[in-house]
């Protein structure tokens, strides 16, 4: 039973300039806020962010925008963040907008050894620009390619020492997908539990996807 708990300093030291970081959460809810502060404390810059949104100005994921750490974003919208919008319009942050369901599938593909999925979402819109169009059984689909990151930051409700995770309510959102899509997965859990405390049928993210858990 190898422990996955890691001290904050050890986690802070992992972040480097230019990395691609995927972060769970939806509109400031279910975001790994302590791990986001670790990124800020690392001093890493020129990051590419993969997350559903950029939170509110200087809140949750928005902290990274506020601190000037983000060069690029892959997301489904930035509208809530009054700092991201002008940065995008000024060309200071490169934002790639992806329909939310396609964004979820792209993360899932990236984390599941799949190259992409075929969807009808976005056909005939600017979301289809630059994408392959594929015919299957007489139907037309857009090919949405897999999306991966170097580091994933995940917010869980509970984690056991092996990294088996559960989530609470709508805080689950993109977290189980983010947990799969990266080379290194780091978890912030509200609560540590013992092995089997939550019951094996209730585990949502198996520990095999988790590399480290923030100790606190």
């Amino acid at each position, binding site marked *: 039973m190898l422990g996955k708990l890691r001290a904050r300093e050890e986690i802070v030291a992992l972040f480097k300039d230019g990395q691609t970081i995927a972060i769970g959460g*939806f*509109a*400031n*809810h*279910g975001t790994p806020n302590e791990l986001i502060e670790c990124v800020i404390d690392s001093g890493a810059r020129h990051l590419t962010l993969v997350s*559903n*949104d950029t939170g509110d100005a200087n809140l949750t994921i928005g902290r990274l925008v506020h601190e000037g750490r983000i060069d690029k974003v892959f*997301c*489904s*919208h*930035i*509208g809530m963040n009054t700092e991201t*919008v002008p940065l*995008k319009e000024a060309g200071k942050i490169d934002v790639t*907008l992806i*329909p*939310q*369901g*396609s*964004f*979820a*599938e792209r*993360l*899932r593909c990236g984390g599941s050894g799949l190259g992409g999925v075929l*969807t*009808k*979402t*976005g*056909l*005939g*819109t*600017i*979301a289809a620009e630059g994408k392959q169009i594929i015919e299957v059984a007489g139907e037309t689909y857009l090919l949405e390619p897999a999306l991966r990151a170097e580091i994933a930051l995940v917010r869980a*409700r509970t984690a056991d020492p092996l990294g088996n995770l559960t*989530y*609470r*309510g*709508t*805080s*689950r*959102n*993109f*977290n*189980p*997908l983010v947990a799969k899509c990266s080379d290194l997965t780091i978890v912030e859990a509200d609560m540590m539990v013992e092995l089997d405390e939550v019951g094996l049928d209730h585990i*949502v993210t198996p520990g095999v996807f988790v590399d480290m858990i923030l100790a606190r």
Partner: protein
Amino acid sequence: MDKRNRMAKRVAEYFKPGDIINLGIGIPSLCGNYAPKGVMLHTENGLIGVGPASTGLQNVESFSNANAMRFVPVPGSSVFDSAESFAIVRSGRLAATVLGGLQVSVKGDLANWARPGKTVGMGGAMDLVNGARQVIVTMDLVTKTGEPKILNECTFPLTGKACVSHIVTDQCVIDVVPEGLLLREILEGLAPEDIQKQVEPTLVVAGDLAVMAE
């Protein structure tokens, strides 16, 4: 009843017990108040069973809808991740999605997420209009400056092509049908010509044109 609630109430007439419905922000978010018993609300961030706004100890981060409103789940709710949430959306499991609109075309194309040069993100709207069995747009018939929003062709970036089922406006109800746009209901005191002059395409007037409830 104010205009917004009147529109929301009219939209909710499309709902039947057992339906799972997704509601957008603005007027659509009011439709739940008029839904028949047995309708359940889906929120795309991962839950079926959105209930009333929460207060006190129940006001927790872990039960928030896609508009960041905190709520109490209703009995029989279920939770899932974003991939499963959109599997529900794309596969036609939602009886309807209700959204606001910027423009709707005669073919049922919808533009509701961006103005030219102002693209801050489509969120889940493109999946919702692609997947829900009915796409109900509720919006004022014309813009604040009196420009038509129902057009021959949308000029704003599209959310989806040929996806709209019903348009519920402050003045009328219009269905998108193979023949074009069918005017089904108008407010008391208005004539079909009053509506026609506020839209670009030529409307088909229903033989059984009804009065829209005040």
